[in-house]
């Protein structure tokens, strides 16, 4: 029998069995998206609300397609952060949505912990689609799905994640998932962008990209957020690119069959050279394809539980 998923709020609280169940279920939905009829009737009559307090095209579209390919009714709500007062207004929003009986609410919010807060005020299943600098669990799942398909396993892989690690919920969720599944995770970035206490996450820290990439099975580049350019974290885009950008020379340090990943959107010429982004080793579009499958699996597993439990 399968394990019941009430919410998907973070990777940190998942055990290996739950992670494997999510990835295995996603394999089934991966096949569905490649069929001629890319839709199954499974969530007919269920309602999914995408509640996005942060700009997102890829993730929102991915969740929307996932819901629609499961035959759920999907409603998108985009709220610009500037127009809300955090806390009370979020609670009011949730109370209003709750009155419309959604089965799953997908939340993206600039505040770490917002989806957890939402989950305490709704009967719906809640999916964290990215909260502040905390976690982005479906991104980590789709990354793991992509790695597993490319490499046949997760255990024993060496995965280098490079960029603004300290501010990255993608890096954090990936570190939790990959270390739990037996992979070796290396974080790499300027010292100002590496979080304190990498050891507690079970990862190795590097401030040299060539050294971090050496012998890697997977090289994952993170977007350098333009809003942080010119800040004290690093002097200039060009200098960042020279030291921490992935180019052919650096990638040659990795295993010959290494794959290159990026959660997008990419800054070509900053953290990744265009020839690498479009090259034979790039798995960037595989990640996007995996995203729909993984989110279908998450919605499927949550929707079955939704509405069964009383409001806590």
């Amino acid at each position, binding site marked *: 029998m399968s394990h019941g998923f009430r919410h998907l709020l973070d990777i940190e609280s998942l055990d290996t069995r739950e992670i494997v169940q999510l990835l295995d*279920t996603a394999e*089934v939905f991966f096949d569905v998206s490649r069929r001629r009829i890319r839709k199954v009737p499974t969530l007919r009559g269920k309602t999914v609300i995408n509640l996005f307090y942060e700009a997102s095209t890829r993730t929102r579209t991915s969740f929307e397609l996932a819901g629609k390919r499961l035959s759920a009714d999907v409603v998108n709500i985009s709220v610009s952060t500037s127009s809300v007062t955090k806390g009370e207004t979020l609670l009011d929003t949730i109370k209003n949505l709750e009155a419309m009986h959604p089965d799953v609410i997908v939340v993206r919010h600039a505040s770490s912990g917002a989806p957890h807060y939402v989950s305490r005020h709704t009967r719906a299943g809640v999916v964290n689609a990215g909260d502040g600098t905390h976690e982005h669990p479906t991104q980590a799942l789709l990354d793991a799905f992509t790695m597993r398909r490319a490499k046949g396993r997760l255990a024993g892989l060496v995965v280098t994640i490079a960029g603004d690690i300290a501010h990255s919920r993608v890096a954090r969720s990936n570190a939790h998932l990959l270390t739990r599944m037996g992979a070796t995770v290396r974080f790499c970035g300027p010292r100002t962008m590496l979080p304190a206490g990498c050891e507690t996450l079970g990862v190795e820290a590097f401030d040299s990209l060539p050294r971090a990439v050496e012998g890697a099975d997977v090289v994952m580049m993170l977007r350098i957020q333009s809003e942080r350019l010119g800040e004290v974290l690093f002097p200039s885009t060009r200098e960042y690119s020279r030291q921490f950008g992935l180019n052919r020379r650096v990638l040659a340090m990795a295993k010959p069959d290494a794959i290159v990943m990026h959660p997008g959107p990419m800054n070509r010429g900053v953290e990744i050279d265009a020839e690498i982004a479009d090259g034979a080793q790039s798995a960037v579009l595989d990640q996007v394809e995996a995203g729909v499958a993984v989110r279908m699996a998450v919605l499927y597993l949550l929707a*079955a539980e939704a509405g069964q439990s009383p409001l806590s």
Partner: protein
Amino acid sequence: MDADEITRALRRMAGEIAERNGGAARVALVGIRRGGVPLAYRLRVLLRELEGRDVPVGTLDINLYRDDTATANPSPVVGRSDLHFPIEDHDVVLVDDVLFTGRTIRAGIDALLDYGRPSSVQLAVLVDRGHRELPIQPDYVGRVVSTVRNERVDVVLDADDGSPDRALVLEAASGDSGEVRA
């Protein structure tokens, strides 16, 4: 049914499939996971003996098409379907071990049609135990067995422990030690 009875029933069913479809040239077998899959492969072997050709075999997981996902808790484990051949030009024989309420077959037909539009869809089952809840009838039957609603019918094929193939009716509530009636 013991192993010999199962084999004889399947051989007869293979003959009926070939007879009804004018040979096996356009026949495809699709086993419903999981009980129907080994039966589909056995029917292929028997059809090869009769007709001298291998028909395509696919597998179908119907869990995404169930009519009780809204109430099933926790959600059922879904498996992969494998239909690697175009079903458009085929007379597709759905294969399952036990036909009971008919709901699984309804889901199987819906799942199948999402892969294309076969020339026809037929149904082969090893055991028809009655108690239909939908208007679905098999085209090929190994054996009709009258059962009480809450009895269980177990079909064991290719058991891991090497025990012989068999189809059993187990009395309700007596579990695996139940009296064998078929």
